[in-house]
Protein backbone atom coordinates (compact mmCIF):
# COMPACT_ATOMS: atom_id res chain seq x y z
CA UNK A 1 0.00 0.00 0.00
CA UNK A 2 1.43 3.31 -1.01
CA UNK A 3 1.06 6.61 0.78
CA UNK A 4 -1.32 7.90 -1.88
CA UNK A 5 -3.68 4.97 -1.55
CA UNK A 6 -3.90 5.42 2.22
CA UNK A 7 -4.61 9.13 1.83
CA UNK A 8 -7.26 8.51 -0.81
CA UNK A 9 -8.91 5.79 1.28
CA UNK A 10 -9.07 8.04 4.33
CA UNK A 11 -10.33 10.99 2.27
CA UNK A 12 -13.02 8.89 0.66
CA UNK A 13 -14.12 7.52 4.00
CA UNK A 14 -14.25 10.92 5.66
CA UNK A 15 -16.10 12.35 2.68
CA UNK A 16 -18.61 9.52 2.79
CA UNK A 17 -19.17 9.86 6.51
CA UNK A 18 -19.54 13.62 6.21
CA UNK A 19 -21.90 13.36 3.27
CA UNK A 20 -24.07 10.86 5.08
CA UNK A 21 -24.06 12.45 8.53
CA UNK A 22 -23.78 16.15 7.84
CA UNK A 23 -26.60 16.03 5.35
CA UNK A 24 -29.01 14.89 8.09
CA UNK A 25 -29.43 18.29 9.76
CA UNK A 26 -29.34 19.98 6.38
CA UNK A 27 -32.04 17.66 5.05
CA UNK A 28 -34.22 18.10 8.13
CA UNK A 29 -33.92 21.85 7.74
CA UNK A 30 -34.51 21.64 4.00
CA UNK A 31 -37.59 19.56 4.56
CA UNK A 32 -39.07 21.95 7.09
CA UNK A 33 -38.33 25.07 5.09
CA UNK A 34 -39.59 23.49 1.89
CA UNK A 35 -42.77 22.40 3.61
CA UNK A 36 -43.23 25.95 4.78
CA UNK A 37 -42.62 27.52 1.42
CA UNK A 38 -44.87 25.06 -0.38
CA UNK A 39 -47.64 25.84 2.08
CA UNK A 40 -47.08 29.61 1.94
CA UNK A 41 -45.36 29.76 5.31
CA UNK A 42 -41.75 30.47 6.13
CA UNK A 43 -40.62 27.56 8.28
CA UNK A 44 -37.95 27.71 10.97
CA UNK A 45 -35.71 30.74 10.39
CA UNK A 46 -35.15 32.21 13.85
CA UNK A 47 -32.59 30.11 15.70
CA UNK A 48 -29.19 31.67 15.58
CA UNK A 49 -25.71 31.57 17.05
CA UNK A 50 -24.44 35.12 17.65
CA UNK A 51 -26.94 36.37 15.10
CA UNK A 52 -25.92 33.87 12.43
CA UNK A 53 -29.02 32.03 11.40
CA UNK A 54 -27.86 30.75 7.98
CA UNK A 55 -31.43 30.66 6.80
CA UNK A 56 -32.44 28.67 9.87
CA UNK A 57 -30.22 25.63 9.50
CA UNK A 58 -29.02 26.22 13.07
CA UNK A 59 -32.44 24.99 14.18
CA UNK A 60 -31.53 21.40 13.28
CA UNK A 61 -28.44 21.51 15.47
CA UNK A 62 -30.49 22.95 18.30
CA UNK A 63 -32.90 20.05 17.85
CA UNK A 64 -30.08 17.54 18.06
CA UNK A 65 -28.85 19.12 21.28
CA UNK A 66 -32.37 19.05 22.64
CA UNK A 67 -32.80 15.38 21.82
CA UNK A 68 -29.44 14.54 23.35
CA UNK A 69 -30.16 16.12 26.70
CA UNK A 70 -33.74 14.88 26.89
CA UNK A 71 -34.76 12.50 29.62
CA UNK A 72 -34.01 8.92 28.64
CA UNK A 73 -37.43 7.42 29.19
CA UNK A 74 -37.77 3.70 29.11
CA UNK A 75 -41.31 2.28 28.98
CA UNK A 76 -41.72 0.06 32.04
CA UNK A 77 -44.16 -2.36 30.45
CA UNK A 78 -41.47 -3.77 28.21
CA UNK A 79 -40.11 -6.69 30.16
CA UNK A 80 -38.48 -8.95 27.58
CA UNK A 81 -36.13 -8.06 24.80
CA UNK A 82 -34.98 -4.79 26.29
CA UNK A 83 -31.62 -4.86 24.61
CA UNK A 84 -33.20 -5.57 21.24
CA UNK A 85 -35.66 -2.74 21.84
CA UNK A 86 -32.71 -0.44 22.34
CA UNK A 87 -30.79 -1.96 19.46
CA UNK A 88 -33.46 -1.71 16.77
CA UNK A 89 -33.12 2.04 16.04
CA UNK A 90 -29.41 1.48 15.75
CA UNK A 91 -29.97 -1.32 13.25
CA UNK A 92 -32.08 0.96 11.06
CA UNK A 93 -29.64 3.85 11.29
CA UNK A 94 -26.54 1.76 10.71
CA UNK A 95 -28.04 -0.12 7.79
CA UNK A 96 -28.89 3.14 6.02
CA UNK A 97 -25.44 4.50 6.77
CA UNK A 98 -23.60 1.41 5.58
CA UNK A 99 -25.62 1.22 2.40
CA UNK A 100 -24.44 4.71 1.52
CA UNK A 101 -20.81 3.68 1.81
CA UNK A 102 -20.54 2.02 -1.59
CA UNK A 103 -21.57 5.05 -3.64
CA UNK A 104 -18.69 6.47 -5.69
CA UNK A 105 -18.35 10.25 -5.37
CA UNK A 106 -15.80 10.60 -8.10
CA UNK A 107 -14.02 8.58 -10.70
CA UNK A 108 -11.25 6.17 -9.83
CA UNK A 109 -8.01 8.06 -9.29
CA UNK A 110 -4.99 6.60 -11.06
CA UNK A 111 -1.84 7.59 -9.23
CA UNK A 112 1.44 5.93 -10.23
CA UNK A 113 -0.47 3.25 -12.09
CA UNK A 114 -2.46 2.35 -8.98
CA UNK A 115 -6.24 2.56 -9.29
CA UNK A 116 -7.73 4.16 -6.19
CA UNK A 117 -11.50 4.07 -5.89
CA UNK A 118 -13.27 7.10 -4.49
CA UNK A 119 -15.69 5.05 -2.46
CA UNK A 120 -15.73 4.87 1.35
CA UNK A 121 -15.85 1.10 0.94
CA UNK A 122 -13.79 0.34 -2.14
CA UNK A 123 -15.66 -2.73 -3.32
CA UNK A 124 -16.51 -3.85 -6.84
CA UNK A 125 -19.85 -5.45 -6.00
CA UNK A 126 -21.53 -2.23 -4.81
CA UNK A 127 -25.00 -3.10 -6.06
CA UNK A 128 -25.08 -6.36 -4.12
CA UNK A 129 -23.81 -4.61 -1.01
CA UNK A 130 -26.51 -2.01 -1.36
CA UNK A 131 -29.27 -4.57 -1.86
CA UNK A 132 -28.08 -6.71 1.03
CA UNK A 133 -27.52 -3.95 3.58
CA UNK A 134 -30.24 -1.58 2.41
CA UNK A 135 -32.99 -4.11 3.15
CA UNK A 136 -31.73 -4.76 6.68
CA UNK A 137 -33.05 -1.37 7.74
CA UNK A 138 -36.61 -2.56 7.86
CA UNK A 139 -35.65 -5.29 10.34
CA UNK A 140 -34.97 -2.56 12.88
CA UNK A 141 -38.44 -1.19 12.21
CA UNK A 142 -40.06 -4.59 12.65
CA UNK A 143 -38.13 -5.39 15.84
CA UNK A 144 -38.94 -1.99 17.26
CA UNK A 145 -42.62 -2.33 16.53
CA UNK A 146 -42.84 -5.87 17.84
CA UNK A 147 -40.90 -5.30 21.04
CA UNK A 148 -42.78 -2.14 21.96
CA UNK A 149 -45.68 -4.28 23.21
CA UNK A 150 -48.07 -1.67 21.96
CA UNK A 151 -50.87 -2.12 19.47
CA UNK A 152 -50.03 0.96 17.46
CA UNK A 153 -46.41 -0.04 17.20
CA UNK A 154 -47.38 -3.57 16.24
CA UNK A 155 -49.68 -2.28 13.51
CA UNK A 156 -46.94 -0.01 12.26
CA UNK A 157 -44.47 -2.86 12.15
CA UNK A 158 -47.00 -5.05 10.39
CA UNK A 159 -47.54 -2.40 7.77
CA UNK A 160 -43.80 -2.01 7.34
CA UNK A 161 -43.59 -5.74 6.74
CA UNK A 162 -46.39 -5.61 4.22
CA UNK A 163 -44.47 -2.86 2.46
CA UNK A 164 -41.31 -4.95 2.27
CA UNK A 165 -43.07 -7.83 0.58
CA UNK A 166 -44.63 -5.47 -1.94
CA UNK A 167 -41.69 -3.38 -3.08
CA UNK A 168 -38.60 -5.54 -2.61
CA UNK A 169 -39.33 -7.76 -5.62
CA UNK A 170 -39.95 -4.97 -8.15
CA UNK A 171 -36.93 -3.14 -6.77
CA UNK A 172 -34.71 -6.18 -7.20
CA UNK A 173 -36.04 -6.90 -10.68
CA UNK A 174 -35.62 -3.29 -11.78
CA UNK A 175 -32.04 -3.34 -10.54
CA UNK A 176 -31.43 -6.62 -12.38
CA UNK A 177 -32.54 -4.91 -15.59
CA UNK A 178 -29.91 -2.27 -14.96
CA UNK A 179 -27.29 -4.89 -14.21
CA UNK A 180 -28.14 -6.63 -17.49
CA UNK A 181 -27.99 -3.36 -19.42
CA UNK A 182 -24.74 -2.12 -17.93
CA UNK A 183 -23.29 -5.61 -17.64
CA UNK A 184 -21.78 -4.87 -14.25
CA UNK A 185 -22.52 -4.86 -10.53
CA UNK A 186 -20.06 -2.07 -9.86
CA UNK A 187 -21.57 1.35 -9.27
CA UNK A 188 -18.50 3.06 -10.67
CA UNK A 189 -18.63 1.04 -13.89
CA UNK A 190 -22.31 1.93 -14.18
CA UNK A 191 -21.41 5.61 -14.05
CA UNK A 192 -18.71 5.00 -16.65
CA UNK A 193 -21.25 3.37 -18.92
CA UNK A 194 -23.54 6.39 -18.66
CA UNK A 195 -20.98 8.91 -19.93
CA UNK A 196 -21.53 7.82 -23.53
CA UNK A 197 -24.13 9.40 -25.73
CA UNK A 198 -27.25 7.83 -27.09
CA UNK A 199 -28.31 8.46 -30.71
CA UNK A 200 -25.70 11.19 -30.78
CA UNK A 201 -27.48 13.73 -28.64
CA UNK A 202 -28.89 12.21 -25.44
CA UNK A 203 -26.56 11.38 -22.59
CA UNK A 204 -26.80 7.63 -22.17
CA UNK A 205 -28.27 7.87 -18.71
CA UNK A 206 -30.20 4.95 -17.33
CA UNK A 207 -33.33 7.03 -17.34
CA UNK A 208 -33.21 7.20 -21.15
CA UNK A 209 -32.01 3.65 -21.65
CA UNK A 210 -34.52 2.07 -19.30
CA UNK A 211 -37.39 4.49 -18.71
CA UNK A 212 -39.73 1.85 -17.31
CA UNK A 213 -37.17 0.33 -14.96
CA UNK A 214 -36.21 3.83 -13.88
CA UNK A 215 -39.74 4.64 -12.85
CA UNK A 216 -40.04 1.34 -11.01
CA UNK A 217 -36.72 1.96 -9.30
CA UNK A 218 -37.75 5.42 -8.16
CA UNK A 219 -41.15 4.24 -6.92
CA UNK A 220 -39.64 1.26 -5.10
CA UNK A 221 -36.97 3.41 -3.50
CA UNK A 222 -39.60 5.86 -2.31
CA UNK A 223 -41.25 2.87 -0.67
CA UNK A 224 -38.00 1.58 0.75
CA UNK A 225 -37.20 4.89 2.40
CA UNK A 226 -40.68 5.03 3.88
CA UNK A 227 -41.34 8.43 2.37
CA UNK A 228 -44.56 9.83 1.08
CA UNK A 229 -46.64 8.59 -0.67
CA UNK A 230 -45.63 5.36 1.07
CA UNK A 231 -45.47 6.40 4.73
CA UNK A 232 -47.69 3.56 5.80
CA UNK A 233 -45.60 2.43 8.77
CA UNK A 234 -46.56 5.58 10.62
CA UNK A 235 -49.78 7.52 10.40
CA UNK A 236 -50.70 10.25 12.83
CA UNK A 237 -54.38 9.87 12.28
CA UNK A 238 -54.59 6.09 12.54
CA UNK A 239 -51.74 4.54 14.45
CA UNK A 240 -50.06 7.53 16.12
CA UNK A 241 -46.38 7.31 15.28
CA UNK A 242 -46.48 3.65 14.29
CA UNK A 243 -43.41 1.71 15.26
CA UNK A 244 -41.83 4.80 16.85
CA UNK A 245 -44.61 5.35 19.40
CA UNK A 246 -42.69 4.03 22.41
CA UNK A 247 -39.39 5.59 21.48
CA UNK A 248 -38.19 8.85 22.93
CA UNK A 249 -35.14 11.10 23.04
CA UNK A 250 -32.10 9.78 21.20
CA UNK A 251 -33.70 6.39 20.47
CA UNK A 252 -36.37 8.20 18.50
CA UNK A 253 -33.78 10.45 16.92
CA UNK A 254 -31.95 7.37 15.63
CA UNK A 255 -35.04 6.25 13.73
CA UNK A 256 -35.67 9.78 12.58
CA UNK A 257 -32.13 10.30 11.36
CA UNK A 258 -32.07 6.83 9.84
CA UNK A 259 -34.99 7.89 7.68
CA UNK A 260 -33.06 10.84 6.33
CA UNK A 261 -29.90 8.83 5.79
CA UNK A 262 -32.01 6.29 3.92
CA UNK A 263 -33.47 9.06 1.78
CA UNK A 264 -29.98 10.34 1.08
CA UNK A 265 -28.83 6.83 0.19
CA UNK A 266 -31.80 6.32 -2.09
CA UNK A 267 -31.07 9.61 -3.86
CA UNK A 268 -27.44 8.60 -4.25
CA UNK A 269 -28.41 5.21 -5.70
CA UNK A 270 -30.89 6.81 -8.08
CA UNK A 271 -28.46 9.38 -9.42
CA UNK A 272 -25.68 6.81 -9.66
CA UNK A 273 -27.82 4.27 -11.47
CA UNK A 274 -29.92 6.40 -13.76
CA UNK A 275 -28.72 10.01 -13.75
CA UNK A 276 -25.06 9.61 -14.55
CA UNK A 277 -23.67 9.74 -11.03
CA UNK A 278 -20.84 12.18 -10.50
CA UNK A 279 -20.36 12.88 -14.23
CA UNK A 280 -21.53 15.84 -16.18
CA UNK A 281 -23.59 14.73 -19.15
CA UNK A 282 -21.50 14.13 -22.31
CA UNK A 283 -18.25 14.63 -20.39
CA UNK A 284 -16.08 11.69 -19.40
CA UNK A 285 -13.29 11.87 -16.87
CA UNK A 286 -10.75 11.40 -19.65
CA UNK A 287 -12.12 14.45 -21.43
CA UNK A 288 -12.05 16.47 -18.23
CA UNK A 289 -8.42 15.54 -17.64
CA UNK A 290 -7.30 16.24 -21.18
CA UNK A 291 -9.11 19.52 -21.65
CA UNK A 292 -8.82 20.70 -18.11
CA UNK A 293 -7.82 24.21 -19.17
CA UNK A 294 -11.12 24.86 -20.93
CA UNK A 295 -13.11 23.61 -17.96
CA UNK A 296 -10.99 25.72 -15.66
CA UNK A 297 -11.65 28.82 -17.77
CA UNK A 298 -15.35 28.08 -17.82
CA UNK A 299 -15.36 27.62 -14.06
CA UNK A 300 -13.39 30.82 -13.52
CA UNK A 301 -16.34 32.61 -15.10
CA UNK A 302 -19.04 30.44 -13.56
CA UNK A 303 -17.88 30.52 -9.95
CA UNK A 304 -18.09 34.33 -9.58
CA UNK A 305 -21.38 34.35 -11.46
CA UNK A 306 -22.80 31.78 -9.06
CA UNK A 307 -21.40 33.66 -6.07
CA UNK A 308 -22.93 36.87 -7.34
CA UNK A 309 -26.27 35.13 -7.70
CA UNK A 310 -26.06 33.74 -4.18
CA UNK A 311 -25.19 37.12 -2.74
CA UNK A 312 -27.99 38.90 -4.54
CA UNK A 313 -30.42 36.18 -3.44
CA UNK A 314 -29.29 36.62 0.14
CA UNK A 315 -29.50 40.39 0.02
CA UNK A 316 -33.00 40.14 -1.33
CA UNK A 317 -34.33 37.58 1.11
CA UNK A 318 -32.26 37.86 4.27
CA UNK A 319 -33.92 41.00 5.57
CA UNK A 320 -36.98 41.84 7.54
CA UNK A 321 -40.07 43.43 6.14
CA UNK A 322 -40.54 47.19 6.17
CA UNK A 323 -43.24 46.77 8.80
CA UNK A 324 -40.75 45.35 11.32
CA UNK A 325 -38.41 47.79 13.02
CA UNK A 326 -35.68 45.60 14.53
CA UNK A 327 -33.64 43.64 12.02
CA UNK A 328 -32.10 41.30 14.67
CA UNK A 329 -28.65 41.36 13.12
CA UNK A 330 -29.62 40.26 9.64
CA UNK A 331 -27.75 43.06 7.90
CA UNK A 332 -24.60 42.17 9.81
CA UNK A 333 -25.02 38.50 8.94
CA UNK A 334 -25.51 39.31 5.27
CA UNK A 335 -22.38 41.41 5.31
CA UNK A 336 -20.19 38.74 6.90
CA UNK A 337 -21.46 35.97 4.64
CA UNK A 338 -21.02 38.19 1.58
CA UNK A 339 -17.39 38.78 2.48
CA UNK A 340 -16.89 35.06 3.13
CA UNK A 341 -18.43 34.07 -0.21
CA UNK A 342 -16.36 36.64 -2.11
CA UNK A 343 -13.23 35.37 -0.39
CA UNK A 344 -14.14 31.79 -1.29
CA UNK A 345 -14.78 32.71 -4.92
CA UNK A 346 -11.45 34.51 -5.16
CA UNK A 347 -9.59 31.55 -3.66
CA UNK A 348 -11.28 29.04 -5.97
CA UNK A 349 -10.58 31.25 -8.99
CA UNK A 350 -6.95 31.67 -7.98
CA UNK A 351 -6.48 27.92 -7.63
CA UNK A 352 -8.14 27.27 -10.99
CA UNK A 353 -6.04 29.93 -12.68
CA UNK A 354 -2.88 28.50 -11.17
CA UNK A 355 -3.77 25.00 -12.31
CA UNK A 356 -4.59 26.09 -15.85
CA UNK A 357 -1.41 28.12 -16.23
CA UNK A 358 1.01 25.68 -14.64
CA UNK A 359 -0.07 22.18 -15.63
CA UNK A 360 0.57 19.51 -13.04
CA UNK A 361 -0.78 16.02 -13.60
CA UNK A 362 -1.44 15.13 -9.99
CA UNK A 363 -2.98 18.49 -9.09
CA UNK A 364 -5.20 18.33 -12.17
CA UNK A 365 -6.36 14.88 -11.17
CA UNK A 366 -7.22 16.06 -7.69
CA UNK A 367 -9.03 19.11 -9.07
CA UNK A 368 -11.05 16.93 -11.44
CA UNK A 369 -11.96 14.65 -8.53
CA UNK A 370 -13.10 17.64 -6.53
CA UNK A 371 -15.18 18.93 -9.40
CA UNK A 372 -16.81 15.53 -9.63
CA UNK A 373 -17.50 15.47 -5.91
CA UNK A 374 -19.15 18.87 -6.20
CA UNK A 375 -21.28 17.68 -9.12
CA UNK A 376 -22.23 14.61 -7.13
CA UNK A 377 -23.29 16.67 -4.13
CA UNK A 378 -25.29 19.05 -6.31
CA UNK A 379 -27.11 16.18 -8.00
CA UNK A 380 -27.66 14.49 -4.66
CA UNK A 381 -29.19 17.62 -3.18
CA UNK A 382 -31.34 18.16 -6.26
CA UNK A 383 -32.75 14.67 -5.95
CA UNK A 384 -33.25 15.05 -2.21
CA UNK A 385 -35.23 18.18 -3.01
CA UNK A 386 -37.33 16.11 -5.38
CA UNK A 387 -37.99 13.61 -2.59
CA UNK A 388 -39.03 16.42 -0.29
CA UNK A 389 -41.25 18.20 -2.78
CA UNK A 390 -42.99 14.94 -3.63
CA UNK A 391 -43.71 14.47 0.05
CA UNK A 392 -45.53 17.79 0.18
CA UNK A 393 -47.40 17.09 -3.03
CA UNK A 394 -48.92 13.64 -2.76
CA UNK A 395 -51.38 12.14 -0.32
CA UNK A 396 -50.64 8.82 1.33
CA UNK A 397 -51.54 5.40 -0.05
CA UNK A 398 -53.45 2.90 2.00
CA UNK A 399 -51.20 -0.03 2.69
CA UNK A 400 -53.32 -2.51 0.75
CA UNK A 401 -53.08 -0.12 -2.18
CA UNK A 402 -49.32 -0.23 -1.88
CA UNK A 403 -49.46 -4.01 -1.93
CA UNK A 404 -51.68 -4.11 -4.99
CA UNK A 405 -49.46 -1.54 -6.68
CA UNK A 406 -46.44 -3.67 -5.94
CA UNK A 407 -47.84 -7.05 -6.91
CA UNK A 408 -50.36 -6.22 -9.63
CA UNK A 409 -48.55 -3.48 -11.51
CA UNK A 410 -44.91 -3.09 -10.63
CA UNK A 411 -44.00 -6.77 -10.49
CA UNK A 412 -45.44 -7.72 -13.93
CA UNK A 413 -44.05 -4.54 -15.42
CA UNK A 414 -40.58 -5.15 -14.07
CA UNK A 415 -40.67 -8.79 -15.20
CA UNK A 416 -41.77 -7.67 -18.65
CA UNK A 417 -39.05 -5.05 -18.70
CA UNK A 418 -36.46 -7.62 -17.68
CA UNK A 419 -37.52 -9.95 -20.52
CA UNK A 420 -37.36 -7.20 -23.10
CA UNK A 421 -34.00 -6.04 -21.79
CA UNK A 422 -32.59 -9.55 -21.87
CA UNK A 423 -33.82 -10.13 -25.42
CA UNK A 424 -32.44 -6.82 -26.65
CA UNK A 425 -29.09 -7.33 -24.93
CA UNK A 426 -28.73 -10.88 -26.28
CA UNK A 427 -29.93 -9.77 -29.73
CA UNK A 428 -27.49 -6.85 -29.91
CA UNK A 429 -24.52 -8.93 -28.85
Amino acid sequence: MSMASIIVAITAFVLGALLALLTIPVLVWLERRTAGLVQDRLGPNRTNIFGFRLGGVVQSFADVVKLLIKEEYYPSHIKIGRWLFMLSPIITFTAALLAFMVIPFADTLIIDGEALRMQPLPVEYGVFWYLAIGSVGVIGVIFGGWLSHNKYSLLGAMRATSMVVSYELPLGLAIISFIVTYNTVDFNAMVQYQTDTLFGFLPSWGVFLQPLASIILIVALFAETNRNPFTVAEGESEIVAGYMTEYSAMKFAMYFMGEYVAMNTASAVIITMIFGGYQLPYVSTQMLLENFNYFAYALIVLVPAFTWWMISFMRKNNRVRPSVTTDSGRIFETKVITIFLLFLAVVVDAILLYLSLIPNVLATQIAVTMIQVVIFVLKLMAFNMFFILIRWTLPRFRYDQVQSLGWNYLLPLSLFNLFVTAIVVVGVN
Partner: protein
Amino acid sequence: MGKNIITTPRYGKNFKDRLYLPAIYEGCKVTFKHFFTNINNSNAVDTLEYPEEQPSDITSRYRGLHRLTHRADDTIACVACFMCATACPSDCIFIEATERDDNKDEKMPKSFSIDTLECIFCGYCVEACPCDAIRMDTGIFSLTGNSREDFVLNKDQLLSYKGAFGEENSCARS
Protein backbone atom coordinates in the same frame (compact mmCIF):
# COMPACT_ATOMS: atom_id res chain seq x y z
CA MET B 1 -87.71 12.56 -9.57
CA GLY B 2 -85.89 12.16 -12.78
CA LYS B 3 -85.49 15.78 -13.59
CA ASN B 4 -83.29 16.84 -10.74
CA ILE B 5 -80.83 13.99 -10.85
CA ILE B 6 -77.38 15.16 -11.79
CA THR B 7 -74.92 12.50 -12.80
CA THR B 8 -71.46 13.55 -11.80
CA PRO B 9 -68.75 12.10 -13.96
CA ARG B 10 -66.67 9.34 -12.39
CA TYR B 11 -62.96 9.88 -12.50
CA GLY B 12 -60.15 7.41 -12.10
CA LYS B 13 -61.29 4.77 -14.56
CA ASN B 14 -59.61 5.78 -17.80
CA PHE B 15 -56.06 4.89 -18.68
CA LYS B 16 -54.61 8.32 -18.00
CA ASP B 17 -56.04 8.41 -14.49
CA ARG B 18 -55.02 4.86 -13.75
CA LEU B 19 -51.47 5.60 -14.86
CA TYR B 20 -51.30 8.04 -11.92
CA LEU B 21 -48.13 9.68 -13.22
CA PRO B 22 -49.90 12.54 -15.08
CA ALA B 23 -51.74 13.33 -11.85
CA ILE B 24 -48.45 13.45 -9.98
CA TYR B 25 -47.13 15.80 -12.63
CA GLU B 26 -50.14 18.09 -12.24
CA GLY B 27 -49.80 18.07 -8.48
CA CYS B 28 -46.11 18.82 -8.64
CA LYS B 29 -46.80 21.75 -10.92
CA VAL B 30 -48.88 23.37 -8.19
CA THR B 31 -46.49 22.73 -5.30
CA PHE B 32 -43.40 23.63 -7.31
CA LYS B 33 -45.03 26.88 -8.37
CA HIS B 34 -45.76 27.83 -4.78
CA PHE B 35 -42.27 26.82 -3.76
CA PHE B 36 -40.48 28.83 -6.40
CA THR B 37 -42.57 31.99 -6.07
CA ASN B 38 -42.11 31.92 -2.31
CA ILE B 39 -38.40 31.17 -2.31
CA ASN B 40 -37.86 33.98 -4.80
CA ASN B 41 -39.42 36.55 -2.56
CA SER B 42 -39.80 35.19 0.92
CA ASN B 43 -40.84 38.58 2.27
CA ALA B 44 -43.99 38.45 0.19
CA VAL B 45 -45.20 35.32 2.01
CA ASP B 46 -48.31 36.38 3.82
CA THR B 47 -47.36 35.52 7.39
CA LEU B 48 -47.01 37.53 10.54
CA GLU B 49 -43.46 38.10 11.77
CA TYR B 50 -44.40 37.34 15.31
CA PRO B 51 -43.30 38.54 17.87
CA GLU B 52 -42.00 41.69 16.16
CA GLU B 53 -45.35 42.05 14.47
CA GLN B 54 -48.39 41.54 16.65
CA PRO B 55 -51.77 40.42 15.36
CA SER B 56 -54.13 43.28 14.69
CA ASP B 57 -57.25 41.30 13.90
CA ILE B 58 -58.38 40.12 17.34
CA THR B 59 -62.14 40.59 17.46
CA SER B 60 -64.18 41.45 20.52
CA ARG B 61 -65.54 37.89 20.60
CA TYR B 62 -62.06 36.45 20.97
CA ARG B 63 -61.70 34.42 24.15
CA GLY B 64 -58.44 35.62 25.61
CA LEU B 65 -57.10 35.52 29.13
CA HIS B 66 -59.63 35.94 31.94
CA ARG B 67 -60.02 39.00 34.09
CA LEU B 68 -62.21 39.98 37.03
CA THR B 69 -64.22 43.13 36.48
CA HIS B 70 -64.78 46.04 38.82
CA ARG B 71 -67.87 47.96 39.86
CA ALA B 72 -68.16 51.66 39.18
CA ASP B 73 -66.41 52.42 42.48
CA ASP B 74 -63.52 50.12 41.66
CA THR B 75 -64.44 47.36 44.09
CA ILE B 76 -64.61 43.76 42.92
CA ALA B 77 -67.79 42.75 41.12
CA CYS B 78 -67.60 39.08 42.01
CA VAL B 79 -69.93 37.88 44.77
CA ALA B 80 -68.25 34.50 45.24
CA CYS B 81 -71.28 32.52 44.17
CA PHE B 82 -69.16 29.65 42.80
CA MET B 83 -71.23 29.48 39.60
CA CYS B 84 -68.14 29.72 37.40
CA ALA B 85 -66.25 27.12 39.39
CA THR B 86 -69.23 24.80 39.10
CA ALA B 87 -69.59 25.33 35.38
CA CYS B 88 -65.91 24.92 34.65
CA PRO B 89 -65.34 21.62 32.85
CA SER B 90 -61.69 21.48 33.81
CA ASP B 91 -62.15 22.33 37.49
CA CYS B 92 -59.51 24.99 37.39
CA ILE B 93 -61.19 27.87 39.23
CA PHE B 94 -60.42 27.97 42.93
CA ILE B 95 -62.46 30.37 45.05
CA GLU B 96 -62.39 31.04 48.76
CA ALA B 97 -65.29 33.20 49.93
CA THR B 98 -65.35 35.75 52.70
CA GLU B 99 -67.82 38.19 54.16
CA ARG B 100 -68.09 41.56 52.55
CA ASP B 101 -67.89 44.61 54.78
CA ASP B 102 -68.68 47.50 52.45
CA ASN B 103 -72.45 46.83 52.42
CA LYS B 104 -72.50 46.29 48.68
CA ASP B 105 -73.13 42.58 48.75
CA GLU B 106 -72.96 39.80 51.24
CA LYS B 107 -69.97 37.92 49.93
CA MET B 108 -66.79 38.43 47.98
CA PRO B 109 -63.89 36.15 47.17
CA LYS B 110 -60.99 36.12 49.60
CA SER B 111 -58.92 34.40 47.01
CA PHE B 112 -59.76 33.66 43.42
CA SER B 113 -57.32 31.81 41.22
CA ILE B 114 -57.44 30.21 37.81
CA ASP B 115 -54.99 27.56 36.75
CA THR B 116 -54.49 28.54 33.10
CA LEU B 117 -52.57 25.38 32.36
CA GLU B 118 -55.72 23.39 33.08
CA CYS B 119 -58.08 25.88 31.46
CA ILE B 120 -59.34 25.02 28.00
CA PHE B 121 -60.61 28.54 27.30
CA CYS B 122 -64.15 27.35 26.72
CA GLY B 123 -65.74 30.47 28.16
CA TYR B 124 -68.30 28.58 30.28
CA CYS B 125 -67.25 30.55 33.36
CA VAL B 126 -68.12 33.79 31.57
CA GLU B 127 -71.48 32.41 30.54
CA ALA B 128 -72.26 31.16 34.03
CA CYS B 129 -71.44 34.31 35.94
CA PRO B 130 -74.61 36.15 37.08
CA CYS B 131 -72.69 39.34 37.90
CA ASP B 132 -70.66 39.83 34.74
CA ALA B 133 -67.71 39.58 37.10
CA ILE B 134 -65.49 37.31 35.03
CA ARG B 135 -64.71 38.06 31.43
CA MET B 136 -62.35 36.88 28.72
CA ASP B 137 -62.09 40.15 26.82
CA THR B 138 -58.50 41.06 27.64
CA GLY B 139 -57.30 40.22 24.15
CA ILE B 140 -54.26 38.52 25.71
CA PHE B 141 -53.46 35.37 23.74
CA SER B 142 -50.08 34.44 25.09
CA LEU B 143 -48.97 33.82 28.64
CA THR B 144 -45.43 32.88 29.49
CA GLY B 145 -43.75 31.77 32.66
CA ASN B 146 -40.83 29.83 33.99
CA SER B 147 -42.65 27.48 36.35
CA ARG B 148 -46.06 25.91 36.66
CA GLU B 149 -46.91 28.24 39.51
CA ASP B 150 -46.50 31.23 37.21
CA PHE B 151 -49.56 30.11 35.31
CA VAL B 152 -51.90 30.06 38.30
CA LEU B 153 -53.35 33.56 38.21
CA ASN B 154 -54.46 34.95 41.55
CA LYS B 155 -57.12 37.51 42.37
CA ASP B 156 -54.84 40.54 42.15
CA GLN B 157 -53.50 39.53 38.78
CA LEU B 158 -56.97 38.85 37.45
CA LEU B 159 -58.20 42.21 38.71
CA SER B 160 -55.26 44.04 37.17
CA TYR B 161 -56.03 43.12 33.56
CA LYS B 162 -57.90 45.66 31.50
CA GLY B 163 -60.62 44.96 28.99
CA ALA B 164 -59.40 45.42 25.46
CA PHE B 165 -62.66 46.38 23.82
CA GLY B 166 -64.06 49.36 25.68
CA GLU B 167 -66.38 47.84 28.28
CA GLU B 168 -64.42 48.19 31.46
CA ASN B 169 -66.77 47.67 34.43
CA SER B 170 -69.27 44.99 35.20
CA CYS B 171 -72.59 45.54 33.49
CA ALA B 172 -74.59 43.65 36.13
CA ARG B 173 -73.27 45.05 39.42
CA SER B 174 -72.77 48.70 40.05
